[in-house]
């Protein structure tokens, strides 16, 4: 455990040092143009952030479902040699449900992006 603590300490210190290095060593010159957001050369267009496509949320939901299923696979894979055939059949049943869900999401068009 002491190793983990030391690793986090050393890497964390280095990270903080790197992030704050410019503040310590860099110059400070400000002007109004610098303060505007970068809009690819076009004039300042927006005050607040605009909404973003809902597709991204859908991907997040699907990720939650599938990643939890991945987590369930890991302990099974770890003891797979000991539990053998029984474990395999049970896992196939579980996987069947997962794959049905996957096909449903596919047919519903959850993975389709506008071309």
């Amino acid at each position, binding site marked *: 455990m*002491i*190793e*983990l603590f*030391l*690793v*986090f300490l*050393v*890497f*964390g210190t*280095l*990270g903080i040092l*790197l*992030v*704050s*290095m*410019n*503040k310590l*060593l*860099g*110059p*400070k*010159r400000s002007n109004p143009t*610098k*303060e505007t*957001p*970068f*809009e*690819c050369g076009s004039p300042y*267009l*927006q005050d607040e*952030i605009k909404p973003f*496509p809902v597709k*991204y949320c859908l*991907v*997040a939901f*699907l*990720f939650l479902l*599938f*990643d939890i299923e*991945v*987590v369930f*696979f*890991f302990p099974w*894979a*770890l*003891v*797979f*040699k000991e539990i053998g*055939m029984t474990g*395999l059949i049970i*896992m*196939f049943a579980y*996987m069947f449900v*997962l794959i049905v869900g*996957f096909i449903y999401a*596919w047919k519903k068009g959850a*993975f*389709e*992006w506008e*071309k």
Partner: protein
Amino acid sequence: MSEVLIVLIKIICALVWLLALTLYLTWVERKESAVIQDRIGANRADILGIRIIGLFQPIADAIKFVFKEDFTPRFSKKYLHTLAPFISFFFVAVTISAIPFGDVLRIGGREIKLLILDFNVGLLFVLAMLSLGIYGIILGGWASNNRYTLLGGMRGAAQLVSYEVALGLSLVGLIMVYPSLNLSSIVHAQGELLFGWLPKWGVFLQPLGCLIFFFAALAETKRVPFDLPEGENEIVGFFTEYSGLKWGLFMMTDFMEVLIISTLLITLFFGGWQVPWMSADGFHFPWGAQVLLPHGIVVLFQVLAFNLKVFFFCWLQILIRWTYPRFRYDQVMDLGWKLLIPLSLANIIGTGIIMSI
């Protein structure tokens, strides 16, 4: 006390290895792209008039980064804006501590393992840290308060999150073959021989898993075939509002990810520090010949083998980065969800069936 000292020395060594290679990976990338595009590449940086094929260029870049202005836009969310590069850097860099660089080194009656964190759950630790790195992108995009950065951050999050699933699933087959989550025991298990002559590396037992892992990992590095979050010529990326070393940290993270992915790939699928047919006391070739070596030389061979494999995969990734054009966003999503995930599920089913008969 001496235990803590040894751990600290190991951490410093790993850190220096990581940072130095990250720095010089930028040089390798420039030179390799130059060769591919028939240019000369970076060669101007010199110390007292001596330029060794541009080898001082990364040092010059680093010095330039350090003396840039610390600029946080007024409209940004200040703390998150500073936190994002830190998270991005920290969680990727920490991963190196779970990677075994070699077997046990015996010095003065001590047995020193050439890895820092000898976890039972080393693999899960690595995956968890790599996933946490995604926060750096989202926070960076969101805290900059600019619509292009937000779009870049969203794209990055969706892409990384999609490939995260394939990355996890591709490793399930590997864990079934070597029933362990401990990275050093996975490497040990790969030292055995298959049919008496073939090293029992993951790539020979799990070729499909290896391929899926490599593609998913390439997407995780968010470099060119998959550089949608950055998209230089359309949205400029989630780090548009960053400058100086903070931007440098994002760029460093990219290169560091190339390195980490290489180390992870060889640890899991290409035998880690294993040299083919070499065990703790020297070479035992399958045709019966033996070359016995002292302990120090064996460890040296292991570390060298590890480094050579890492360099090879870094080279391969840079080659891919400079060879292929960028995917469209729907193509990236299709590759992740419609190809890699079904394939990795099929890989698990296939592995299960083959192993039980």
